[in-house]
């Protein structure tokens, strides 16, 4: 149950049966620091920037896997007549140890395609700067994102490009971010 009353159910992988070094190597994935979020919000207040938010629907399912991972067919949903076969995963599932990292890498790549640059001092902040147009700053926390900048049209255009890549829920001008 979410705070707005939506109910959720999803297929998850049994990550606890994965073997380190074989099924996964790295599981760490960066998220933005709370203090950076506050810094950006204070900056946006000072500069009178426009802020807009979104979240990516079932983000982890987009993550591309580097490893070869097989999974038993989900109980009750096995293909009739082929119950003994297993599934080979192309993309991550919730529950996989590396799902977070896989999604983050995929996201990082796509933001690069949108000509965002990731900051060296904060892996959760992406900076869009092109000659002759206003800047846009992306604040990313796993599947939650805020975009802000001085020019509403530019920010919205970038956000639209981002939303065409993933299925997103548009949160408009946010009242809260990460429950803050």
């Amino acid at each position, binding site marked *: 149950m979410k705070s707005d009353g939506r109910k959720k159910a999803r297929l998850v992988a049994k990550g606890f049966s994965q073997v380190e070094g074989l099924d996964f190597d790295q599981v760490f994935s960066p998220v933005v620091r709370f203090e950076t979020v*506050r810094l950006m919000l204070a900056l*946006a*207040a*000072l500069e009178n920037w426009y802020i807009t938010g979104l979240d990516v629907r079932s983000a982890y399912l987009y993550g591309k896997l580097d490893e070869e991972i097989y999974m038993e067919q989900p109980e009750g949903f096995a293909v009739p007549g082929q119950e003994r076969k297993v599934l080979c995963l192309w993309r991550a599932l919730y529950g996989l140890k590396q799902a977070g990292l896989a999604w983050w890498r995929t996201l990082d790549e796509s933001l690069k395609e949108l000509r965002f640059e990731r900051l*060296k*001092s904060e892996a959760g*902040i992406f900076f869009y700067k092109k000659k002759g147009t206003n800047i846009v700053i992306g604040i990313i926390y796993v599947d939650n994102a805020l975009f802000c900048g001085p020019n509403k049209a530019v920010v919205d255009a970038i956000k639209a490009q981002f939303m065409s890549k993933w299925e997103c829920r548009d949160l408009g001008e946010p009242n809260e971010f990460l429950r*803050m």
Partner: protein
Amino acid sequence: MLNAKSASTPLPAGYYATKNTEPVDADLRSHFQTVIGSLLYLMLGTRPNIAFAVTHLSRHAANPSQDHLNKALYICRYLIGTSMYSLVYNGGSGAGLIACMDSDWGSDPTSRLSQTGFYLKLADGLISWTSRAQKTIAYSSTEAEYMALSDCTRQVTWIRSLLGELSYKLKAIPICSDNQGSIFMASNPVTEPRSKHIDIHYHGIHESVAKGNVELFFIDGAENPADLLTKNLPREKFAKFRAQIGLQFPSGSI
């Protein structure tokens, strides 16, 4: 709990938790850890005013006493009375980055470790805050201040480089301290018998001062809002400093 009488400060003024000498009570411990965990989360998000109280109590998470649990619930009672408060960034203020720091020498009655507290403010609201016990014993109050100042400087340096990457060119960021000795030491690379044992990495602060990344200012100890991050204050002082760090009761808008 919702109907509990609210408290005016997170913990009673001058309170210090003492070590529990009784054997571990597993139920009490798990209850305490649940409460402290929730409080820590709130503190990280939008409640710098409970930072000292929560981190101070959390040190006893391995073996809490009934008194520790009562005090954790005391913090909850404070929060209930102030649940409508929010961190406000005032864009119209035009207020730039400013840091404030404080330390409390040897304040932990058991370990005699000193307390570090500092924060960074932008647009008149807090963006970053830290309240923690220092890792090594300080032999003087100046040394304790100096260690806190160094931690604060490192945080400022990081924020500087972050904003630098966003093409902001900043002047020296002011850091306010109420200790003349540590400001002197930070500004003048002197080695005195009393300070030469201070760990070398704290001298990194010299570099920041010399490069003009930070500038140190003296403020009166009684007027230092960072006091809030190093000790349990009496009600009036606490309320005054809380207003100064941008935590406000919403006016008009709601």
